[in-house]
Structures are given as structure tokens and as C-alpha cells.
């Protein structure tokens, strides 16, 4: 009777009990136990944590770290009811499945569980991992016998060279019904370059192993290319299989016909496998870049007759078996006057034998810049042939190009050949020899006198010019004022001159001078052109200026006398001339006062 069946029985009993008795929560306890205290290396064991008195945990239990000697595979939970002395108790069991990875005696620390506000701690455990496989008698998780369901990892070769492919095949063997599986843990391929191979189409086959018949199927195939030498370990592959188990009930339904089945997840893992990787023998060709397998190289141009500056396509194709993806572009022997642009790379890889085979194509655009017949030397690809355990070099056939046309300066072309480094090709430009103008380090434009002089002097000059212009404008605009100010002075000068002419001989000149004095005085006072003045106009001007007729009349009378004496002289009379001067002076003084 398997554990599953027993559990089902207990469960069924508990169900019946549940119908009759109330469930009382008991004091909560926790304990931990192992499926077996002694386990063989790479075999599985289960750490059970049993919590009584609850169905609910506050968070996941804190399981000690067992990574020193075991790999965690998965966990499961089950609940059961127990009846004792009329009381029902609930027991929650969590199963942690591990695979032992190191030999020796190991302590498993206490597991801490929190449930219903309480913190429960289990007693520590001890496990012994031996190199001798103990019988696969221990019950695996989910109640499936490890002999009934397991994975075997197989290497196509036990010993390989670096970069030589080896295929790992993971095959599942089962005697139980497996509905399906999914990978839970992909083994790490650190230290390898892995090429996943497609699932084989073989399907399920019947295989006899150790005298027992199993249904068997390949679940994964990987081609591995070790990248370094030494002893390598491949981590186990873990899957979760859906195993169909029968659930039985008692009584009337205890019949296979009514047996109901359900799927139960079972976590299983393959063994870790080891592989010897040996370094490649010495004596590799100079162009060897780590290729292992069997390769061929071929080159071609899309045409062989062309003009300079025409672009042509150069195709380099590497085919063969081995780590074809790692092929790097080999050295090409193009002359320096060829422009070679970086290639377009395509690759196709398919599984073949233990590894892969395929092709990698490099397509270069090449532009010749000089005419002539150019022989492209063979392209060499060195590799290690793992079948013959010897180095070999694949060689392409030489190709001749016939280029016609004029030479073109390569540097004038687009891009030009890529320069390898800077320092080797370029230099800085030469120093300055011509004497520069030095200036003070602290010098600022705003601290120099010149700046402020240049800034302010024109402002001052403009201000001065404006002031000067205003002064002149005022002078020009105030002629009347100036004349007015000069009027009395000029009149006095003229009267003085007239007095000097006061002799009978110069009688005519005397009156002319008096007339000029009188006329000039008024012209200056009123800022009028004196020549054009008629006496009537003078009168109206003066009346308009607000001068009374008492003042105007004597003035005009004097003027009339002087005019008459000038053009129609009478007998010169010195007394009358003296009187004339007095009257003219008095008239102008009165007029001056009236106009003030």
C-alpha cells in the first residue's frame, strides 16, 4: 500500500469523523522529519515539516539553507485530519524535496513556522549522504517510487577537446502514467557554448532497463561546446511531471471501476554528469582561432571585370561541422588601393551528428581605386580536426580581377580605408611662431582707461555739439533783440557824427545823417528793413506797438524836416541845426521809453 493510498484512507476516515464530531483546535505543534536519514549521493530526499492544529500558516516556513550538500527541487503541501479520543486534529505537512550533492554527515537546522500568531520551531535534524546508493526504497515526493520515474542524462562522449561538441540527451523513464511535464530548472551552461537541438520526433518507446520495462522518451537535447579545458560538471535538469494516481474510497465504491484518478505534480531531477575536456594539442597554425570540426572555405566575386570606382561584392563562405557560429572573418589579402567595407554576415546552423553543421557567409562591398590585374591571394582558415586529431587549413582558390579605368585618389573617395589608430596616423598642428600681442591676465575691457575714454568722450563731444548748436540757434533767432539793444547806441553814434557836420557847408550831409539816425533807430527797434519804410507805415507800426501819437508825431516831424532839408535845402542856420539835433535826440528818447 502506497503512502498515497494510506493518506487517502486517513482522509476518508477523517471526513467521516468530521461529520460526527466538532473540530477542536488543539495546541499547535510543529515537527520536522526526513524521508530517510541516510541517502546516496545524487539521490533525492524529502524534508517534511508537519504542523498540527492549523490549516493556515502565516507565510512560508523558514527552511535552513541546505545548498552546502543538496539542491532544492521543489515543494508540496498536504493536509490531513486525525482523530484521537473523540477529538479531531488537523495536520498540515509541507514537503521539501532535495537532491544530495555532497558526501558526509550534515546537520539540518531548525525550521521556523509561524501559524495563528505563534512561532513554532522544530528540532534540528541530521542526515548522512553516502557514496553508496541506498536502495531506491525511499518514497519520493508525491508517493511515486524513484524507480518508477527518473531522468537519465547521457553524454555522446565522455572526453572531448575544447570547442569540440558533445551532445547531452535527457531521457525520461517511467512506469507510471505521466500526463505531461515542464522544465522547472534549466541546467546552467556556464563554461559551454550551448546549441539547443530540436526535440527528436521519436516519441515514446518501450525500453528495458535493469530487467524492467519502461516507457521512455527524450525530453531535451543540447549540443555543448566547452570553452575551456578541465573536468566539467553539468548541473542536473529538473522537471515537474504530472503523474496520474488512483484515489480509492472505501465501501461500495472500493472498486477499480469507480476508481477516480487525479494528477499529482512530482518533481524529479537527473543526475549531475561530468565531462573531461582536454586542451587542444600544441602546434596550431598561426591563423588558428579556435575552430574545431571540419571546415571548408570558398570565395567568389559577383564579377571579375570592372572599372575603377565600381563597387563589387566579395563573398566568403565557410561551411562545415563544428562551432561554425564562432568563425570570425579571416584575413583578406586585398591590396591597399582597395576600399573594403565591413561585411554583412549571415549564418545558418542545423544539428548534425553530435554537434551542428552549417554555413557562415561574409559579404563585403569592395571598391578598387587603381586599374590593373589583381590576384586576390587564397583565404586560409585554420581549424582542428577532431576526427583525425590534427590541425588542418582550409584554403580557397585565388581569384584574378581585371580592373580598367583611371586611378582614383583613395583619400578623395568616400570614407577611405579605416585607420587603425589615431596616434600613429595623426599629429597635432604646429605651434604659433609669429609674435602675438600679449595682454595682462587680469585685463578686462572694463578696467582699461581706453575703453572708458572711447565710451565717454564721444558722449561728451555730442553733448558739447548740442550745447553749441543751441547757443548759435538762439543768437540767430534773437536778431530783433540784438538790434533793439544796439538801436540807441547806433542812433547816438549817428547824432554825434551829425553834430560834427554842423557847418553850413555840410548842411545837406548833416540832415542826411540825422535822418539815418532817426530811421535806423526805428528799424533796429522794430527789426524792420529801414530802407523800405514810408512814414505812414512807420506811424501804423508804432500805433500797433501801442505808442501814443504824442510820441510818434515829434519823431515823424523830425524825420520830415531832415528829409526836406536833404532834398530841398533852405538857408543853412546853425541854430536851427543845433535845435534839430536836440529835437531828434528827444524824439528818440521818448520813442525808446514808449517801446520799452
Amino acid at each position: 500500500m502506497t503512502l498515497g493510498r494510506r493518506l487517502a484512507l486517513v482522509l476518508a476516515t477523517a471526513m467521516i469523523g468530521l461529520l460526527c464530531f466538532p473540530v477542536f483546535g488543539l495546541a499547535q505543534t510543529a515537527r520536522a522529519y526526513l524521508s530517510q536519514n541516510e541517502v546516496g549521493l545524487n539521490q533525492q530526499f524529502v524534508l517534511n515539516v508537519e504542523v498540527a492544529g492549523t490549516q493556515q500558516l502565516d507565510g512560508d516556513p523558514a527552511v535552513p539553507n541546505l545548498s552546502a550538500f543538496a539542491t532544492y527541487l521543489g515543494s508540496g503541501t498536504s493536509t490531513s485530519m486525525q482523530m484521537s479520543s473523540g477529538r479531531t486534529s488537523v495536520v498540515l505537512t509541507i514537503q521539501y524535496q532535495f537532491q544530495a550533492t555532497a558526501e558526509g554527515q550534515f546537520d539540518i537546522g531548525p525550521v521556523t513556522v509561524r501559524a495563528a500568531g505563534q512561532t513554532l520551531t522544530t528540532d534540528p535534524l541530521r542526515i548522512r549522504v553516502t557514496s553508496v546508493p541506498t536502495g531506491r526504497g525511499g518514497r519520493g515526493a508525491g508517493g511515486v517510487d524513484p524507480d518508477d520515474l527518473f531522468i537519465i542524462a547521457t553524454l555522446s562522449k565522455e572526453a572531448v577537446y575544447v570547442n569540440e561538441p558533445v551532445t547531452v540527451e535527457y531521457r525520461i523513464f517511467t512506469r507510471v502514467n505521466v500526463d505531461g511535464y515542464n522544465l522547472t530548472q534549466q541546467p546552467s551552461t556556464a563554461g559551454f557554448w550551448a546549441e539547443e537541438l530540436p526535440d527528436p520526433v521519436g516519441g515514446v518507446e518501450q525500453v528495458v532497463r535493469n530487467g524492467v520495462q519502461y516507457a521512455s522518451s527524450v525530453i531535451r537535447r543540447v549540443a555543448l561546446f566547452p570553452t575551456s579545458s578541465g573536468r566539467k560538471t553539468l548541473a542536473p535538469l529538473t522537471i515537474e511531471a504530472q503523474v496520474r494516481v488512483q484515489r480509492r474510497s472505501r465501501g461500495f465504491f472500493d472498486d477499480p471501476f469507480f476508481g477516480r484518478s487525479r494528477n499529482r505534480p512530482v518533481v524529479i531531477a537527473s543526475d549531475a554528469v561530468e565531462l573531461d575536456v582536454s586542451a587542444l594539442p600544441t602546434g596550431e597554425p598561426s591563423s588558428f582561432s579556435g575552430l574545431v570540426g571540419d571546415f571548408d572555405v570558398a570565395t567568389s566575386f559577383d564579377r571579375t571585370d570592372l572599372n575603377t570606382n565600381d563597387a563589387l561584392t566579395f563573398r566568403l563562405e565557410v561551411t562545415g561541422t563544428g562551432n561554425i557560429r564562432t568563425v570570425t572573418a579571416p584575413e583578406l589579402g586585398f591590396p591597399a588601393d582597395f576600399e573594403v567595407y565591413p561585411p554583412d554576415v549571415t549564418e545558418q546552423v542545423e544539428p548534425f551528428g553530435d554537434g551542428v553543421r552549417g554555413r557562415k557567409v561574409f559579404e563585403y562591398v569592395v571598391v578598387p581605386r587603381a586599374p590593373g590585374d589583381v590576384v586576390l591571394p587564397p583565404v586560409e582558415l585554420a581549424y582542428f580536426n577532431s576526427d583525425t586529431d590534427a590541425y588542418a587549413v582550409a584554403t580557397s582558390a585565388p581569384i584574378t580581377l581585371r580592373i580598367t579605368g583611371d586611378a582614383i585618389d583613395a583619400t578623395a573617395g568616400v570614407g577611405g580605408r579605416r585607420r587603425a589608430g589615431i596616434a600613429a596616423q595623426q599629429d597635432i598642428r604646429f605651434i604659433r611662431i609669429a609674435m602675438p600681442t600679449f595682454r595682462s591676465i587680469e585685463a578686462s575691457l572694463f578696467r582699461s582707461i581706453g575703453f572708458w575714454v572711447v565710451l565717454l568722450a564721444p558722449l561728451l563731444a555730442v553733448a558739447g555739439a548740442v550745447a553749441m548748436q543751441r547757443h548759435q540757434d538762439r543768437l540767430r533767432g534773437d536778431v530783433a533783440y540784438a538790434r533793439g539793444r544796439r538801436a540807441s547806441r547806433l542812433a547816438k553814434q549817428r547824432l554825434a557824427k551829425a553834430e560834427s557836420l554842423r557847418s553850413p557847408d555840410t548842411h545837406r550831409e548833416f540832415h542826411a545823417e540825422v535822418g539815418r539816425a532817426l530811421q535806423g533807430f526805428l528799424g533796429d527797434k522794430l527789426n524792420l528793413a529801414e530802407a523800405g519804410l514810408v512814414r505812414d507805415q512807420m506811424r501804423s507800426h508804432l500805433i500797433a506797438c501801442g505808442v501814443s501819437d504824442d510820441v510818434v508825431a515829434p519823431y515823424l516831424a523830425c524825420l520830415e524836416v531832415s528829409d526836406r532839408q536833404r532834398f530841398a535845402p533852405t538857408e543853412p542856420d546853425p541854430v536851427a541845426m543845433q535845435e534839430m539835433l536836440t529835437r531828434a535826440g528827444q524824439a528818440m528818447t521818448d520813442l525808446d521809453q514808449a517801446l520799452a
Partner: protein
Amino acid sequence: MTLRPLRTLMTTLWLGLLTAGVCAGQEAFFDEGNQRYQDGDFDGAVASYARILEAGLESGDLYYNLGNTYFKRGEIGPAILYYERARRLMPADEDLLANLALARQLTADDITPLPQFWLFRTVRWWVDLVPRSALAWLVGLAYLVASGGGIVWILRHGTPMAVWARRGATVAAGVALLFGINLAVRELDIGAPQKAVVMATEADVQSAPSGDSALRIFAVHEGATVRMGRRSDDWVEIVLEDGTVGWVEAAELEPI
């Protein structure tokens, strides 16, 4: 003639401006440095050029030659520092820009500058377009022409001469204003942040002004040009050209 005293004044001013800043003595050191450079005596060349700087004098060409000398000595940090100092005085010099670009290629850090807004780029180009001394002369001359024209216009108002004087003064005033703004921006360092060059072979950039190794974000290397921000004791906040911000010790930088 009313204009004669003004002309005399202006001639005096120009002569004063010409003679200002003309010094003597450093020509010998400059020639000596050049000769040593050409003889391959780069240490000696640095010493000669340094004498001029010690005298408190500078020139774009002097900084350029110093940059070249340090470059030849394989000291990328000081080379970039002096190229940057030269660039302040002659921002559009082609030889300088070529050498600076080459020196930058040899620095350890590959910092991709953030793209700049085109308007700022254009303004910067415009500000840096004319060399400093030429700019000062241009602005000064335009300013004097503008004011002279103005004076003629005022004093000879109403004559054909005044019309021409006014036109000339307007054009000159426009030129003076346009390039005067340019000159002011340059002289006052408007919009030109304080920059520095990393002198240490490798400078740890911290997330805070503290030497705590837990705060180390990354490292910058000799020759990297950074913008300086805040200061805190011996620490300076720096902004890389790609916008990354951090703190380095001030001793590891040299302001441009």
C-alpha cells in the same frame, strides 16, 4: 572752425588706446619657448612659456603653444587645459580646435555630449565668431564713427553733408550695437559656465561631497572637461557633458 578741437581730442584718444597694453620683455621668452619646442626640449619650452604667464601676461597663441608642448610631453590633462584657455581668447581658431579634438580623442572617457538646443548653438557661434581684439576694435571704431556722424549732423543741420552724416551714423550705430552686445557677452562671460579639466589620472566621482567609498558613483579620467557647480569645502560639484552629476575633490580639477 568748430570741428577742429573735437578732431584733435579723438586723435589723442585713439593714440592712447593704441599704446595701452603694449608691453615689452616677454617676446624673448616666447621666441625661446618656440625654439626649444622645435628642438624637442619640451620641458624647457614649458619653462619659457611659463615665464610669460608669471609676468601676468597671456595670449591665445601662448596658451595654444603651451597646449601643444604638454601634448608632446604626453600630458593630456594640462594640454586640454591650455587648449581650453586658448579657446577662451580665440574661440574660432581652426588649428586650436583641431588639436583640441585630437587631444580629446586620447582621453580615457568617451563622453557623448547632450545635444544642444539649436538656438543656443547659433548664439554661441555668433558670440565666438570674431576674435576678441578685432571685436573690440570694430566696436570702438563703429562707436566713434556713429558719434562723429552724430556731431556733424547736429552742427551742420540742414545741409547735404548732414544727410550723409546721419546715414553713416545710423549704420555705424547699428554695427556698434550688434557687436557691442557680442563683446559684452564675451567680456562678462554671460552664459559661459565655469569649466574645469580633470588633472588627476583618475578621479572618483562621489554622489555627495564626502570621500566615503560607498558613495562612489563612477570615475572620470585625465583630460575630461566638466562644468563646475556648487562648492563644499574641498569638494566641487561637476556636471559632465552628457549631463551626469557628481562631486569630486577640488584638487583633482583645474579651472579653465
